């Protein structure tokens, strides 16, 4: 069986190299089908470079393995699982959602929500005292009764004078 597999790989590699449009090759798996899966995998030999574009020999072999597995009828999920089992979770583009790895998905939203909460609270703290001293404060508050467009032009002219 294994020997047969090997011969099959060889045939497929050769087929891949010599047939023009591999779509029509017998039992053919196109480069595009291989790349669609390879794109989502990362080979440890060239770190942080997706498998579909990594030029090393090891990665070329991986792509051929995907081709072989596709021709055997394995699904995308099965192939990915095979690679995880054989080479570890690092082959995936992001950590699997299990155990400790949940941290990477949970922590940023918590921080962002925390930041938003702090900002919102500060807004409220900053706006509240304002209502008390509103009488002393706002020169722009006085202008707000006039129509917006005029206010804009007025503000603008004022600024122009200032800039001269």
């Amino acid at each position, binding site marked *: 069986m294994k020997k047969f597999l090997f011969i099959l790989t060889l045939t497929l590699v050769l087929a891949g190299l010599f047939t023009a449009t591999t779509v029509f090759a017998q039992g053919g798996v196109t480069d595009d089908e291989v790349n669609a899966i390879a794109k989502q995998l990362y080979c440890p030999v060239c770190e942080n470079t997706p498998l579909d574009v990594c030029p090393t020999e090891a990665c070329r072999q991986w792509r051929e393995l995907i081709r072989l597995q596709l021709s055997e009828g394995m699904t995308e999920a099965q192939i990915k699982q095979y690679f995880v089992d*054989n080479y570890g979770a690092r082959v995936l583009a992001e950590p699997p959602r299990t155990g400790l790895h949940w941290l990477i998905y949970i922590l940023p939203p918590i921080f962002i929500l925390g930041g938003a909460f702090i900002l919102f609270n500060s807004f409220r703290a900053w706006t509240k005292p304002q209502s008390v001293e509103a009488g002393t404060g706002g020169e722009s508050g006085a202008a707000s009764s006039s129509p917006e467009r005029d206010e804009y032009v007025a503000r603008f002219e004022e600024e122009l004078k200032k800039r001269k």
Partner: protein
Amino acid sequence: MTETTTPKRGVPLWAQITIWVFLAGLLVLVGVTLGKRQQGTVQPGDAIPDFTLPLFSGYEYEGKSEVKLSDFRGRVVVLNFWASWCKPCEQEAAELEEAWLFYEPSGEVMFLGADYVDTEPEARSYLKKFSITYPNGPDMGTKISQMFRIRGVPETYFIDQNGALYYVKVGPFTSVNEIKTLVEQKLP
């Protein structure tokens, strides 16, 4: 100045503690990682934790489809990391096999091949090409290579009868004698 109207408040204690804990945690994390990177591979003298190497069919050991390092207490273990895509590995493949054949009858030395980031069909043709007979198997999940913190392939680790590392060879061997000399160090 407007600033004087607001009461001067320092950073609350809880915030200070959080900041320092976070900063310390970050520095420790980075420092420990840096330490790990700097120390390189496991060093001679380190006790090697037990690990399990599954074996390729046809390359089993005494009928078992996986072996543990602890199975070989009392023997010198030569653990070789290789890959079929690795050109320098080919330079030493025949030498390793020759050394294995030399020591196999005595039962004092064990050779193991761990296949690093490789595909099975290619690995098989490599083993066949160099007529390798000692137990060989894939480094599943790159767990063993990460444990040894290997820098690349080929790398060979010499482990003594008590499970402690005593020599690391980075790069290919140039002769059978080189391997033999290293093995003999721990043979009576």
